[in-house]
């Protein structure tokens, strides 16, 4: 069942005289519950895809049908609601609110959705329940990213979007984070998209979309995705 259907998506950034075609006629489909990895070199257009999928940016042309709704046609208010109820985001730089504890950061997101997961439960999932009263400054990068993931899953989103979640972490910690994400995806059956430039990670995905210069290079479906434990970093 096709959950996400991107068709002829083009994104052009205009910077004065210069126009940059960040995405050029991109089309792909993602099934519900699939773990998708978007691969590609820096500047390929991965983040742009994710931002558009996450309702943070608008498409120049093309359609982005998610759960039968074309979000490319949404206005900013509808996009806000879309982000509010349907999307869980994990950033490269965690973006936790410094003045809230781990638990509060999770609750911050969950309090505004319709069917949130219990915040402590979410923290427990990422294994940080014992640190729930700590502030981001008191946590390591990996721990912060885990809080960030807890915050994303606590919203019970339809779509979990992760933009280079391991980019700011050492490989060991990165691995743990990817493991957590795969685990979550499998357990909750949430459609998850992970962006990375690390090809190794591609092996754990159900589907791998390779992007290059704003174009889709290839879409491969992994019949047997590996577990994180099995891959070599």
């Amino acid at each position, binding site marked *: 069942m096709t959950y996400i259907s991107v068709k002829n998506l083009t994104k052009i950034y205009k910077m004065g005289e210069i126009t940059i075609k960040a995405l050029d006629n991109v089309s792909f489909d993602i099934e519900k519950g699939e773990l998708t990895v978007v691969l590609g070199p820096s500047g390929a257009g991965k983040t742009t895809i994710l931002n558009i999928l996450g309702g943070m940016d608008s498409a120049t042309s093309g359609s982005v049908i998610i759960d039968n709704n074309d979000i490319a046609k949404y206005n900013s208010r509808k996009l806000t609601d879309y982000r509010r109820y349907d999307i869980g985001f994990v950033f490269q730089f965690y973006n936790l609110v410094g003045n809230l504890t781990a638990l509060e950061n999770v609750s911050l997101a969950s309090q505004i959705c319709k069917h949130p997961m219990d915040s402590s439960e979410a923290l427990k999932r990422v294994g940080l329940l014992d640190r729930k009263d700590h502030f981001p400054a008191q946590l390591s990068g990996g721990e912060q990213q885990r809080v960030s993931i807890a*915050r994303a899953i606590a919203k019970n989103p339809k779509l979990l979007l992760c933009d280079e979640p391991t980019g700011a972490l050492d490989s060991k910690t990165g691995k743990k984070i990817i493991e957590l994400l795969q685990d979550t995806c499998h357990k909750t059956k949430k459609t998850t998209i992970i962006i990375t430039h690390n090809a190794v990670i591609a092996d754990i995905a159900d589907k791998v979309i390779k992007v290059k210069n704003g174009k889709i290079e290839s879409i491969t479906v992994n019949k047997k995705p590996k577990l994180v434990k099995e891959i070599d970093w």
Partner: protein
Amino acid sequence: MLIFKNSFRKIWKSKGRVLSLILIVILGTSFFAGVRETASDMIKTLDNYYDETNLYDFKIVSTMGLTDDDIASLEEIEGIKKVEGTYSFDTLIDGNAVKVSALSDISEVTLVDGRMPKNNNECLGEEGYYNIGDTIKIEDDTYLESNTCEVVGTINSSSYIYENKGISIVGDGKLDSLIYVPKNNFKLDYYTEIYLLAEGTKNELSYSDSYDEIIEKVNKELQELKPLRETARYEEILKDAMDKVAEAENELNSVKAENETKFNDALTELNSNKIKLDEGLEEYNSSLYTLNKTKESTEEEINNGFNALESAKTEFNNALASTGLTVESLQPTLDTINTNITQLEEQLKGLDPSDSLYETLNARLNELKTNKTNIETLINTNNTLTERENTLNSSLSTWNNEYSKALKELESAKKEIDDGYRELEKGYNEYNTNYNLYLEEIANYEREINDAKAEIQNIEKPVWYLLTRSDLTGYTSFYESATKVDSIAAVFPIFFILIAFLMAFNTMNRMIEEERSEIGAFISLGIRKSTIAFSYLLYVFIACILGLVIGLSIGYTLIPRILYTVYAASFTIPELSTYANPYACLIIVLTTIILMSLVVFITLIKDFRLAPATILRPESPKSGKKILLEHIKPFWRHLSFSWKITLRNLFRYKKRIFMTVLGIAGCTALLLTGFGIKDSLSDLLDIQYGDITHYDATLVLNDDVDLDEVTKSLTDNNLTNYTNTNISSFTFKANNKNLDFTLIAFMNEDSVDDYVTLKSLDGSDLNLSDDGVIITEKMAELLNAEVGKNISIRNSDNELFIVKVSGITENYISNFMYMNSTYYKEIFDDDSYNSYLVNLDDSINKEKLSNNLLDTGYFGAIQYTEDNMDMFNDIIAGMNNIVYLIIAFSSFLAITVLYNLTIININERKREIATLKVLGFRDREVSSYVYRETIILTIVGIIVGIFLGFSLNTFILMIAETDEILFIKIIKPLSYVLSFIIIIVFSIIVQVITYFILKRIDMIDSLKSVE
């Protein structure tokens, strides 16, 4: 250098922040520079005006006029540049008191419209009172050759710049307008005034100490000359008067001499006439006497004749009777006898003698012969008697004729004499009348001469009044107004600029902190620290210099003009010339730049001290310690996240909070102070003249007037509410200055409350006591006096009196001392009164009343409380204007500060805000997340500001207070409310702006990198 390019980019990118920084600098510097410069600009403008019009430095008027000799001796004084004698007089034209002056070179008039007069039939009228073409008719013809003139131009005079032109000796006592005529239209033989220009005063600023110094020096010289010239003038006048007396005496004497002989001659003639008449009368009398005597004797004689005749007649008649005959029968009898005789003789002839017959016949004949003889005798006798009677009768008639003739003669003579006497009497009467008239005339002459002599005795020595510019109402009032500006300007802008600096400091400080990682990157790249510092300095300088240039231009031009316009309403003064004070400019620019650089350095040095690696890492948020409130679990648990964030933010970033609160508090304080000053001023007049000294007018009595008559004239003018008082000017010494106050002694203390309300500072009523005075609050403060203490005061003759203070009364304007008649008598040994305090009916026409009362000649002056109010109103209007400016600028500053604080806040939180947006927070939710903090800080700021403002208000009023005015140090509830509302409204406006800024924050951009 790329790093500077970075600076410029930064400026462009953070337009809002730079703009608010520039605005703050503009507001701070323009207000500071402008308000501080206003008084000096005002004074410079007026000084120019005075210089251009050659306003006199000294004016001399004398009680007896001034002469060319006076001018000559004044010209000899060192330090005098120019001397000019000129004329003026006050006269009533259509009921208005008008000063008619000669056009002079010193104290020139400024032609507003029209042209200068060309002849004596033309004149100039004051602008606003006369129009070109008006015809002026002056009733009093003592002064001018031509008393009618046509207005050919309108003018202003630098001597009369204030709407209150001072006093006039005519009309209701207030000078209304000015007229100028050519000097040679005056026909006086003395000058009424002399104008002086002192050497070097034009180079000095009027009102300045150096100007006063010159004036003081010349004044000393003038004071030395004054008695000499007074004496000289006295002697001159005395000589003139004595000459006149001598001349009059001579005249009298010659008149006397001339008339005396005339009268003497007349009298002599009259007298000699009288003698003649008397002689005539005597002659007449003696003639009459003689005549009467003659008449008597003659008549006696005649009577005797008649008597003798009568007796002879009787004898005759007897004889006759014996004969038996009558007078008529005598002749016939005789004739018969004669016939008988003849017959007998014939018979005898024939008869012999012997014949018996003969014998018989002879005997018969003899008998007949005897008879014949007898009859003949009788006839003779009868004839004689008849003759005698005839003689007697004729002599009687002759006499009678003679007598009546003589009598007639005498009578006519008498009539003549009587006429003569009547004439004489008339002459005497005439003489007497004339002589009496003459005597009266002479007596008059003599009296006049004596009076003149007495007057000479009484000729008072002329008194010179040496007047300076400060005796001009306008000159001083203007200075008062200007210094009122200064008194507020002295301190207020400092607080203003302080807040501006604080905000600029805050902005820079937080900007540098924000860009910590960038600085770290620069350092790690090996860029010199000085270069980095310079890149920030550049940022600051661009903002500051832009702000300074605009701020100083506004400050030096716009602000003085705004403040000046109010004065232009009550003063007739030229356009304001604005001056940029280069020293002040330099100081402001240097201070701003130095302070800003200091901010940059202080903030940077903290970073520079650290190793580049440390700087590169984001400053770890102040450790996630819990704030105190979190320990109150039930409370904390119920808070929403945004509240938790807000509270944590509030309590964690103390410096930031401090700055924000201080900024808002500062603006609130400034606003509140502005309103507070206005409050203090607005009720001042109403309280002073409505609640405290609430009488409507003061009538000052002239010396030696009949008090019954005065009372009558008061009744005639329907004045019933008045009280007898003794009002006089006194001085007391405080802070090494002699300060004036008015002593009011109530002769009838029962009525005090109707005119003045005496209330002690705690609000209780005060009563005049028999052994002490009540003084006003400010005076007590200046004298450091308390109830029961003695204070010393001096009267206008500098005599010292010691009085005991029995009470201190609430009072705000001017200083007063009140006492009752008992204590007054004890201290001054006097129980007379010299003035009335009066309450008027609302319906009374003041101008008419003044005219009526002044016409009686009993009153020297009539002062209406309302006029006093007007004067203070002008001063207060000026101060109010500053207050509006303060309020306006404080409002601007407040909005800028709020904007600045919010912008900084948003900049620091961009990432957090973007995160919230990504999480799906709506715009409203995102803004409220930012607002909450701002609102709390704003409210805290306002509360702090209200306390600050209260102190600031007290402080500024204390500094602005003069020896004359005590401010009511209250801030009305409305002012608190207004200050609160204004800040809140601005805060809301800023929130609206914030809303749109927040909306425009780009999530993707903000999330891209670590900060």
